[in-house]
Structure formats: structure tokens, C-alpha cells
């Protein structure tokens, strides 16, 4: 091993082929991932073709019945509703978060670091606590109703919680930081000379935004969408707390199959469909990101 060898490969370290010791040291990590990520997913897949017995046990057979049930209009509607809510959440997060991310990326270094810290606190604060904050505000005996009543704007308390609006507020509030940070990541890398070039060529701010800034920050929007859209589809805790049982989402149905209803094969089938949706979104966004990067 000489300095010449590492100089020949300037990118990355001078890597050696692993001996058996290196493999033995890596083995626990690889086994951990196989045992607790790959194998469980495979078992989930197998379960989705099984049947349940009367007491909630699992009979190992082969049936398409669970997938036929997924196509039942009742569940199809829940799937579509979840996608709709998650889509709306994602859209609102982009609309609310994009200008913030862009503003932070364009700020001076010290101010930028301060603003980033301000995004980090909600980012790392448990979504459960932040959802509870909205419950204290929206509940019938909560703060907003108290305020409205003390101002004599309303006599009877309004039912603000357990509404579709409350669910969307809860989801947007929980996921907004997860959209701001990735967009900030790509807005920070944006070469501002390109934007100035657009201005010099006579583009107005809106034109420069739509044909230069947005396309160049698309990878950030794609990454944010992956962090917001897919988790929001399956998030049962926020829909449970903010929507009551009124607006069940796919996450609530899956949770219910595994806990109360004890129909694991059907829950597994729903899980497999959700996993396919996740994989599809992932691939689509990756491809889009790759195309834009090229």
C-alpha cells in the first residue's frame, strides 16, 4: 500500500477486500436487518394469503380472499380517502413550507443557523405531544372554544375536534418540518447565479421561480414528499386523536385488524398493498429525482 495507490483513486479511501474477520464483524448487522426487516416482510406476504379461524388464529392455506376483500368498495374508499388526505397534507406542507425553506436558504449564515434551529425543535418534538397541543386548543371544552365564548362570539361550544379539518391540521402540523428540511437542503445548493441570469434575461420573479427555482429544487420536494405522503397514509395515531372514529384511514383499519378484530391475514393483505404503494412512490420519486439531476 503506497501513497500512489490512494492517489490513483482520489474519491474515497483506499479500500481493501474484506478478510473473514471483517465479514464476521459485519455479519451481526446484516443478520439483524435480514431477521428483523426482510424476514418479517416475507412472513407478512405469506400471511396475506392465509385464512383466519374463529378465535383469531391463522390457518395456513392459499387464498386470494383477503385481496378480494381489499377491493371491496368499503376498503377501496378508505384507501382513496387516505391517499386524498395524505395528498392534501403533502400539498399544504409544500405550500406552507417551500417559502420558509427558500427564505432560510437565502438568509445570511448566522441567521440561517438560527432559523434552522427553530425548525429542528418541532422536527424532533414527538408528534404525539404536538398533536395533544392541538387537542387542547380544538376540544369542545378547549382553549379556542373558551376564547370564543368569553368574547361572546358563540354561546354553545363548537365541535372543532373530530372533524376532517382537524385531521388535516393535525397531519400538516406533524409533518411540516419534514417537508421544510429536505427542500431547504436543495434550496441551499441552488446556484443563485442561475436565478440572476433569469432576471437578466428579463424574467420576472414569478417566471424565474416557476422555470428556474422550482425545477432545481425538485429533488428536495420529492424527498419531502417521500417523508410526508407515505407516512401520512398509514398514520393512525393522529387520525385517531384528531378524527375520532369518524374518519378512518387505512392505518386505522390495519391497526384494527391486528388489535381488536384479530383478522391478521386481512390486515397483512392491507399491509402488503400499502407496502406496494410505498415502493411505487419511492421508485417514482427516485426516478423523477434522477431525471432532474441528469
Amino acid at each position: 500500500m503506497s501513497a500512489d495507490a490512494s492517489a490513483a483513486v482520489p474519491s474515497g479511501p483506499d479500500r481493501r477486500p474484506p478478510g473473514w474477520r471483517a465479514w464476521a464483524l459485519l455479519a451481526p448487522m446484516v443478520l439483524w436487518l435480514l431477521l428483523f426487516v426482510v424476514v418479517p416482510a416475507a412472513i407478512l406476504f405469506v400471511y396475506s394469503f392465509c385464512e383466519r379461524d374463529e378465535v383469531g388464529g391463522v390457518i395456513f392455506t392459499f387464498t386470494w380472499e383477503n385481496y378480494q376483500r381489499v377491493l371491496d368498495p368499503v376498503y377501496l374508499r378508505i384507501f382513496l380517502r387516505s391517499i386524498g388526505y395524505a395528498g392534501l397534507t403533502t400539498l399544504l406542507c409544500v405550500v406552507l413550507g417551500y417559502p420558509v425553506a427558500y427564505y432560510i436558504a437565502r438568509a445570511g449564515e448566522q441567521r440561517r443557523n438560527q432559523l434552522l434551529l427553530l425548525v429542528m425543535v418541532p422536527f424532533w418534538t414527538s408528534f404525539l405531544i404536538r398533536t395533544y397541543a392541538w387537542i387542547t386548543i380544538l376540544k369542545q371544552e378547549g382553549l379556542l372554544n373558551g376564547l370564543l365564548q368569553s368574547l361572546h362570539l358563540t354561546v354553545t361550544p363548537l365541535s372543532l375536534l373530530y372533524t376532517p379539518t382537524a385531521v388535516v391540521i393535525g397531519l400538516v402540523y406533524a409533518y411540516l418540518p419534514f417537508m421544510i428540511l429536505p427542500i431547504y437542503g436543495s434550496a441551499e445548493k441552488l446556484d443563485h447565479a442561475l436565478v440572476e441570469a433569469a432576471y437578466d434575461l428579463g424574467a420576472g420573479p414569478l417566471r424565474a421561480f416557476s422555470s428556474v427555482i422550482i425545477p432545481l429544487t425538485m429533488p428536495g420536494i420529492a424527498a419531502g414528499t417521500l417523508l410526508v405522503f407515505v407516512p401520512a397514509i398509514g398514520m393512525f395515531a393522529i387520525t385517531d386523536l384528531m378524527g375520532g372514529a369518524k374518519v378512518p384511514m387505512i392505518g386505522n383499519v390495519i391497526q384494527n385488524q391486528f388489535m381488536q378484530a384479530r383478522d391478521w391475514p386481512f390486515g397483512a393483505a392491507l399491509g402488503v398493498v400499502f407496502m406496494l404503494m410505498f415502493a411505487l412512490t419511492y421508485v417514482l420519486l427516485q426516478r423523477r429525482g434522477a431525471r432532474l439531476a441528469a
Partner: protein
Amino acid sequence: MKKCTLPTAFPFQAPRPRLPSGIVLLHRTLGFWTALVFGFLYLPIVILVVYSFNASRLNILWAGFTLDWYVRLLENGPIIRAAKNSLIIASISTLLAVILGTVGAWLLHRYRFRLARSIQTLVAIPMVMPEILMGISLLILFATIGFNLGFTTVIIGHVTFSFPFVLVAVQARLQGLDPALEEAALDLGATPLQSFWFVILPCLRPAIVAGALMAFTLSMDELIVTFFTRSAASTTLPIQVFGLARVGLNPMLNALSAVFILATVAFVLFSAYLRKLNHR
């Protein structure tokens, strides 16, 4: 990419063109929007904390300052038990996550493994996979092999989603490390293990601490995977909070939330400090 700049002493420099008013207006609007969004993000949290000191039971009217809710929190058996469980689970899973993540990052960095790309993809999956899918598939795994749910199963779940974060943090640090460091150690007669222990590991310390903090925080806050892999005895704090929040308003929850928020602020500030060290 270096930008060409005119020398400032250039005698016939044209006056710097003023930015079109539209752009200035746009920037002001962006600033205003940012302030509004931060208001939206912070107002509920601030209200939550403020009302944890309100003497009356969740009334819009301020009835005086009290620490009563905090005292009751400390006297609440189930919450304290859940908090203890959470701390135990977070400590053990952080330790395991740090070991798996640090060793994994170093090996993937140092050696040319076959399938290295596939392994890297496999590591990324738990970070992006929806938690509910991880929760139900782990539940099915444990049911299939007949492993009783409890502390072990919760810890397994937590390690699975948290060690990739440690691995990525350490990998980022390794990328900036001078390969000559290890070579010098080896040339001076250290074994690969010694050079890792005495040379590489100390350099990685800020990244490891940052990764450990992340793993600990993720574990303390985790609800969904825990929901599917816990038993009654291994109930964690988030599970307890979820149960209480479902029932209704409870000023004790405000107090508990305030403690969590304070811990998060401390964590964020400390992480920022570590990042500064990392860049040094």
C-alpha cells in the same frame, strides 16, 4: 465554481443595478410568510407549556401560577412506571444501535464488500419504511416464532429503526476523515483493531455522540412500532400519553409535554454544538 468578479477599483464600473422592486417585495413577502409559519409551528407548543402552569383545570382564563400538575405527574404511578420503562428501553436500544451503527459504518467504509450497495440499501429501508408496516411485520414475526412480547421485542424494534441513523451519521464523518491517519497507525505497527480503537474511534466521537442522541430521542418518542411489539408490562411513555390523550384533556399531560419539549430543546442545542465540533 468560482464566480468572476470585477475588481472593485475598476474605474468605469457601472453603478450596481438596483434590484427590481418586484424582487425586493418578493423577499419581504417570503420573510413575512416564514414568520407566519413559525407562528403556526410554535404557538400551540407555547400555549401547551404556558397552560401547564395554570392553576385552573384547562380554562382559557388564567387562574394563577402553579406547579401542582408537575407534582401530580411525579405522584402518578402508571406514568412514572412508563417513564422508567422508556428510559430502560431507550438506553439499551441506544447502546445496541451505537455498536451496530458504528461498526457497520466503519466496515462498509474500510472494506470493499461484495454486495456493499445492496447492504447500504437494506440499511436505508428502516429509515424510510412506514412505521406501521415495521410494527405489524415484527408482530407477525414474533407471533410466528412464538416469542412473547415484552421488553426484548420493543428493544428489537427500536434498534432496527434507530441504528441506521447512527450508521449514516458516522459514515458522514468517516467521509471527511484523512485515510492517512489509519495508514500512519498501521505503519507504526498498530494492528487494524488497535488503529480503529485508538485512532479512528476518537475521531468519530462527535458523530457517535450525535448518532446516540438521535437514537435515544427516536426511542423515547416512538409510538407506532412500540404499539405493536409491547406487552402490558413494557408500556412506554408515548403509549401512556396516547392512551391519556384519547380520553381527553388532562393538565398533567401538559406538564409532561413541557418536560418533553424542554428535553427536545436541550437535545437540539447540544446537537448543533456537536455539529460545530464535527466541522472542525
